[in-house]
């Protein structure tokens, strides 16, 4: 049953005198920091930058598709735009989004540690990210790359004269950034937990990031070698994927999707962790079936490695392997459904309040469910032949990645914003932003399901005139969505100076990160916390606040 918790009076809260933000001053103290919280902020700024570049490209793509004629840009410009949109959004935004910003900030605090296990490697991971971003931007500035984000051979190795190597190097380096983040999380969660913090007392956010980290550590190196082989094929002319030399382009697809399918779970799992935290906090109830939710993350990570060939059903894999991969694909639906059902059951008889993170979380549950179910359509062989390479695919993965992951990311950013900055975001504005985002998203991507079902192919800049109405809807929706994303950017920046002071635990959440001041001290905790209560134990929290003597500063 849920526990009713009265929220603390924020009017009396004041900012702590000393925190990680004012511990040291100057650019150097940020660029050479080992503090996981500062690195998280560096990541937050850089991924926001790339999100808006990628978003601007999406805007241009939608603008071109407003009319059936190719009138805004040439076809190769369009190819370059959607390629860069994909590369930037996937490798420079979605993969690092929740783990590198929110995860970096809260995981050490959640487990009760002073920092991640390897602070210098953490900083290096950010620098690698910046280098990767520089490579990607240079590929863009030098004239772009038009392979699609999948770098499909032999197109990428033989038929294009664009900056494939530069962009590929960017992805290679971004991969190492992600490997180091994953490695750091795994070691931290294994070895840095505070006394009493057992595996089953960990917040579910840690579990889901742990599962995503396994995928990062095991999957990303395979992408790295696939990219190295493409680069070697372009530069010195080896023939591993070149049919003229006896190689097989399908092998590239296998290696690429061996990473890039698990990458989908690298992107979504940390988001699911955010949703577990938010749903529990705003229902004032322990997550229903904690163990099942925890192990479903690990199950998704595990199954995620055995389904990659469902991206290749029409690319010449044998019927038998298509059949097997189709069956295995259905398996992933099981742990995903476990999560959705358990979150719904958590809401049941909870004392629910509708703060902004919760609104985003509701958006996530609905949109992710649609995205996931259409994934089951695409996983079945017959349907896939009809729907693949159409806008149905585009709508499907945007429902999962944007409707699911981006909603979860925004939910998490709002949820932990008071902890990160010590100040609240403006509640009314942010609720409006959440609603605008939800409406804009559905208006943008739902018509694309219909377009795809009717047979509009993806990756073309012109289309038959009968598809225009739905495309106009989609473009209009993209405009609304764009406003929905600009709003948090603006009011979050505003709140840094003018937001109400949050106090240590504005949500009355149970995680260890909420039991310390906001913004936290550089060393997180004054003394190592000793954990003698279960995760999401709101009774314990209510009891604790009753007898608490508040000391601030």
């Amino acid at each position, binding site marked *: 049953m849920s526990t009713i918790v009265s929220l603390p009076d924020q009017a009396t809260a004041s900012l702590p005198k000393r925190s990680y933000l004012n511990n040291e001053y100057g650019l150097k103290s940020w660029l050479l920091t080992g503090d996981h919280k500062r690195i998280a902020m560096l990541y937050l700024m850089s991924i926001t930058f790339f999100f808006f570049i990628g978003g601007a490209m999406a805007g241009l793509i939608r603008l071109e598709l407003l009319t059936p004629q190719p009138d805004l840009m040439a076809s190769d410009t369009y190819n370059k735009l959607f390629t860069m949109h994909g590369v930037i959004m996937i490798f420079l935004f979605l993969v690092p989004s929740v783990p590198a910003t929110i995860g970096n900030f809260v995981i050490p605090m959640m487990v009760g*540690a*002073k*920092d*991640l*296990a*390897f*602070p210098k*490697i953490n900083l290096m991971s950010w620098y690698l990210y910046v280098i990767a971003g520089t490579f990607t931007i240079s590929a863009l500035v030098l004239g772009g790359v038009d392979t699609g984000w999948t770098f499909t051979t032999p197109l990428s190795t033989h038929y294009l004269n664009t900056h494939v190597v530069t962009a590929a190097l960017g992805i290679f380096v971004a991969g190492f950034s992600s*490997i180091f983040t994953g*490695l*750091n999380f*795994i*070691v*931290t969660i*294994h*070895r*840095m937990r505070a006394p009493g913090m057992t595996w089953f007392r960990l917040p579910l956010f840690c579990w889901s990031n742990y599962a995503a980290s396994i995928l990062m*550590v*095991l*999957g*990303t*190196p*395979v992408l*790295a*070698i*696939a990219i*190295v*082989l493409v680069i*070697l094929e372009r530069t*010195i*002319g*080896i*023939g*591993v994927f070149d049919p003229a*030399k*006896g*190689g*097989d382009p399908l*092998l590239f697809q296998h*290696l690429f999707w*061996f990473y890039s399918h698990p990458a989908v779970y690298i992107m979504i799992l940390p988001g699911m962790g955010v949703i577990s935290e938010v749903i529990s906090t705003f229902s004032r109830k322990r997550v229903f079936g904690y163990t099942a939710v925890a192990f479903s993350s690990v199950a998704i990570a595990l199954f995620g490695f055995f389904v990659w060939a469902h991206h290749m059903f029409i690319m010449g894999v044998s019927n038998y392997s298509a059949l097997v991969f189709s069956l295995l694909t259905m398996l992933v639906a099981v742990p995903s459904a476990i999560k959705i059902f358990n979150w719904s059951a958590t809401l049941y008889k909870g004392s629910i309040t509708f703060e902004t993170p919760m609104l985003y979380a509701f958006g996530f549950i609905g949109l992710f469910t649609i995205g996931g179910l259409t994934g089951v359509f695409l996983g079945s062989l017959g349907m896939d032949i009809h729907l693949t390479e159409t806008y149905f695919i585009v709508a499907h993965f945007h429902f999962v990645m944007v409707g699911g992951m981006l909603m979860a990311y925004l939910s998490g950013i709002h949820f932990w914003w008071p902890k990160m900055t010590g100040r609240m975001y403006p509640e009314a504005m942010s609720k409006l932003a959440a609603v605008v985002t939800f409406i804009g998203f559905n208006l943008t991507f739902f018509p694309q399901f219909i377009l795809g079902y009717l047979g509009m192919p993806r990756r073309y800049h012109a289309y038959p005139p009968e598809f225009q109405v739905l495309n106009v809807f989609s473009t209009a929706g993209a405009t609304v969505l764009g406003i929905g994303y600009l709003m948090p950017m603006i009011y979050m920046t505003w709140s840094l100076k003018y937001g109400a002071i949050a106090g240590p635990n504005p949500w009355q959440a149970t995680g260890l990160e909420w039991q310390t001041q906001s913004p936290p001290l550089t*060393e997180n905790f004054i003394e*190592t916390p000793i954990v003698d209560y279960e995760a999401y134990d709101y009774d314990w929290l209510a009891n604790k606040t009753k007898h608490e003597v508040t000391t601030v500063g």
Partner: protein
Amino acid sequence: MDSQALAAHPATQPAAGHGSHEHPEYLRHHFDTVEQQKEATQFGMWLFLLTEIMFFGGMFAAYLIYRNWYYPAFAAASNTLSITLGAVNTAVLITSGFAMAMGVWCAETRRRKGLVISLIFTILFGLVFLGIKYVEYSEKFELHHVPGADFSISQFVHPSAASHETPLAPDMAEKTQVYFSLYFAMTGMHALHMIIGIALLLWLLVRAQQGAYTNGYVQPIEYFGLYWHFVDIVWIFLFPLLYLINRHPGR
């Protein structure tokens, strides 16, 4: 009574506490104990090696598939490699690994001079390996066995009488290019790992000279040793796959 005594001498308690918590200099601030630091870093290193296995794993998978498909081409192409140079290089690399293992032992037993000498030998044998690899690579250029525009299959279609090789049909002989592509990619990536390793070794050598690893803080040497042995082990798989299996008596 005890509490009274403590109250009378408040200074004694923290001083004693501080004395019992004396930390070695190399303990990073965010770890509680040396053991925790050791466990965490060791675990991290093994995870890193796991990523390396996955990295090479992609190429081993490609090798297995293509070897299965183009068996005659792979057998014929592997016959052109010099088993002598390969075997010598294997011995050289194992010796380098032995020197590294000696280095770890010297660091653990706090022998600074021994550590420095071991590291120098590790570097030297590593360089010898790369030198021999250079000789092998340049031979490939002379024989037109480097994939690309210059690649020639004539040796496999029309083998010289002295080589006792069975000629391959031209379309199968084309597939030797896949073998050499993989040969260069796999040994090239292996060599790159050795070059990175040697660069790290030079830095470790400078620090070891200053006595940084012979004061109880052996982890950097130990973990570099793990990396170096990993690189050895990759070669231990590459050597039989590329040079040895199914060689038939020929040259």
